[in-house]
């Protein structure tokens, strides 16, 4: 095991004791150490929410953007510098409320990004309101009599939008989460992990105990390359019926591998070509 010191910052985590973000942070650090992710090869992007604080606790170069906008920022980074490992930290409110449109299109274009969704099924930083993934009937500060809306299904949305690696994890199982983050990052194309995490302060339904009792891992017999099966599997969610693991995985050229011409793969090193520009002007005569 290599030293984790190089990832340490002067900031101490501000999350509540028992928060699932602490597990995600720990799993990510383990993965980073194992894989040697550092400031020469890796960059992090986050949106706004409790999840976004993670950037202050990891000594890796990062961009903390606006609520819902982590994916387009990450897309711009990856297009400009394809050599970087680009990680996106986002929450369920961040990614599916404010940022829903970006999620669909990032999946559709299959950018080579690793997307970690801190899914606590509500808005926690704003002190506990309903999110697009809150279950029907959930009592929150904005739904005191119970959530009237149905949640939508992030895994199914990712699969039908064109994502090429779609998985679900439970934050409390850190070794599994660590290996899943590593595997997601190795995938060429967009890799989405919906990470179930308890919000110990505001979500009294989805607790650590609830997840421990009701989740199970997709076994070796499950075939993640079958898109139809994956879609069916993604509908499964109930008592003792929450599958974890890789739902769908397919090899398909990423946007960066397939859509960029040779001249566009190294844009940071390009120089101005006065001769060519003068030639271009002549097209207008």
């Amino acid at each position, binding site marked *: 095991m290599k030293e984790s010191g190089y990832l340490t910052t002067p900031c101490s985590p501000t999350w509540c004791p028992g928060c699932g973000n602490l597990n995600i942070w720990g799993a990510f650090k383990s993965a980073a150490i194992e894989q040697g992710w550092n400031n020469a090869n890796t960059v992090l992007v986050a949106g706004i929410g409790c999840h976004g604080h993670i950037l202050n606790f990891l000594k890796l*170069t990062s961009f903390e953007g*606006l609520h819902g906008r982590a994916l387009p920022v990450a897309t711009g980074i990856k297009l*400009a510098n394809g050599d970087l490992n680009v990680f996106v930290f986002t929450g369920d409110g961040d990614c599916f409320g404010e940022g829903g449109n970006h999620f669909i*299109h990032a999946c559709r274009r299959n950018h080579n990004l690793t997307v970690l969704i801190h899914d606590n099924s509500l808005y926690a930083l704003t002190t506990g309101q309903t999110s697009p993934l809150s279950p029907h009937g959930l009592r929150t500060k904005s739904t005191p009599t119970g959530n009237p809306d149905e949640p939508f299904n992030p895994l199914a949305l990712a699969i039908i939008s064109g994502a090429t690696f779609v998985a679900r994890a439970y934050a409390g199982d850190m070794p599994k989460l660590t290996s899943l983050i590593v595997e997601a990052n190795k995938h060429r194309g967009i890799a989405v992990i919906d990470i179930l995490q308890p919000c110990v302060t505001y979500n009294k339904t989805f607790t650590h105990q609830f997840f421990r009792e009701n989740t199970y891992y997709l076994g070796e017999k499950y075939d993640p390359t079958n898109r139809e099966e994956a879609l069916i599997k993604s509908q499964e969610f109930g008592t003792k019926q929450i599958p974890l693991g890789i739902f769908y995985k397919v090899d398909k050229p990423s946007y960066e591998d397939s859509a960029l011409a040779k001249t*566009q793969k190294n844009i940071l090193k390009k120089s101005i070509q006065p001769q060519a520009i003068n030639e271009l002007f002549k097209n207008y005569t």
Partner: protein
Amino acid sequence: MVNKQQKITSIKIGGYAGQGVKSTGLLLAKYAVRSGYSVYDHTEFPSLIKGGHNVMQVNFSEEAVLAPQKMSDMLIALNQETIDLHINELKPKGIIIYNSDSNINLPKTKKVSFYGIPLYRFAKEAGGEELLINTAALGAAISLMGGNFSILQNLIEEEFNKINSESAETNVKAAKAGFEYMKEKHSADIGRYLTPIESVSSFIPNMLVSGSEAAALGAIAGGLQFAAIYPMSPISNILHVLASNQEKFGYIFKQPEDEISAINMAIGASFAGARSLTATSGGGFCLMTEGYGLAGMTETPIVIIEGMRGAPATGLPTWSEQGDLQFVLHAHQGEFPRIVLAPGDAKEAFELTRLALNLADKYQTPVVVLLDKNICENDQSYPLFDISDFRLDMGKYINKETENYMRYKFSDDGISERSVPGVGNFFISNSDEHDQYGYSTENIEIRNKMMEKRMKKLTTCEEKDMPEPKLYGPEKADITIVSWGSNKGSILQAIQNHPNVNYLHLTWMNPFPSHKVKEILSKAKHVVDIECNYTAQLASLIREKTGVEIKDKFLKYDGRQIFPEEIEEKINSVGGTL
């Protein structure tokens, strides 16, 4: 400018959508350019008129043409509507070319000469039916103006060979038929106002560009590396030029899912080290405002081109306005440094877009290039843009690992050294208030110093990069016009005939050349503010920055261009009261 008797010939082409008004107009404009003339053209799509009536006006002269003209010398009428709607815009002794094969009702007037051409017959004989009527009409018009068929033929072949050789052949045939018919039937009437200028045999023709094209070329010449643009009138041509040249010039163009994504992608690419740009119109800029401030707070360089059109909401999508000046000066919550430049024509659009990329890098903050629809879509001819004097300036930039690197290090000029991910330097580009490394903080002292550091960049920019505004015409004048954007051309043309009028043209809106503007305006005898908006937004800015209140304002907000004739009327009415 000094030529008071400048002879400008104006040709208007009209027809319904699908009759090729724009392509015919562009052929005529390019024909004039290749014959050695200076050209300015503009297109109108009056969307309320049934049938999708389109009009294009091509103006040319031996001297520089700077603006559209209210009155025309010739009307090329591809349908009845063109005659009915535009006959009153003809100068005395005007000419109308029309299709004598269709049922046209000619108005009873002796002020206009009518030339009926069997356009349908020529089109049919050339093998293209109705699609060739416009080209046959163009051949006839160029013939009547004393033009040269081989220049026209070359142009048609170049343009239509892009489709296929048959299309080029049939179009040449149709043009030739119109050209020869005019020569045979009306040889006595043939003028010399589009005859190739003799001295042009060895010349390099001017380029004919719209402001959108010029801005895109300026971006390429400015070392663009990344652009994300969502389509919107009137800036879509920026997108088209950038999309089609990306492989050759090695930058990336991406059409994203919306304007929010466009600006955030551009910010991401810029954070990674690429010179980045986005473009939109006012409505799209509304969506970009959160990203605008994000770039300001994270000190990420970015250029935003905003092409104004009639607003609010969907407004007048195909018409022009200058209603977004105060918007771009104030958009986003709170305060951050923004540089706002407003070109007055296509050449300035080229130069200022190119400069904007340098300024964004140097000051690590958003730079807006504010265009209006008239600049975006009107074409103007210029000698090939000179790129020899441009130097790429990335400002304070580190691309190697540096000990104890601080992205937001306090400095006297407000500018810190920028690094990028992947070179080994740790930092957080943070939308939260942050310390010198980028860690989030709410510390009072750091907040104050960070705010002061960011805002200081504007003062630095003002001192180091902002030029003095340009005053056209005599230094001392009875009337001083102050204006901006596409009004420039009309004003310059109008004051040619008024040696007692000068024009203060403003292109730097933020930082603002307060000192010089105050000096000029407080000395002026009578100041007229000319703008295409309702609330005189530039006059408000001038008052805010200089304390000078301009009482006499000429404002127009009907979406139409200000014509030189209107400005002369204004000058004359003021002149009478001085």
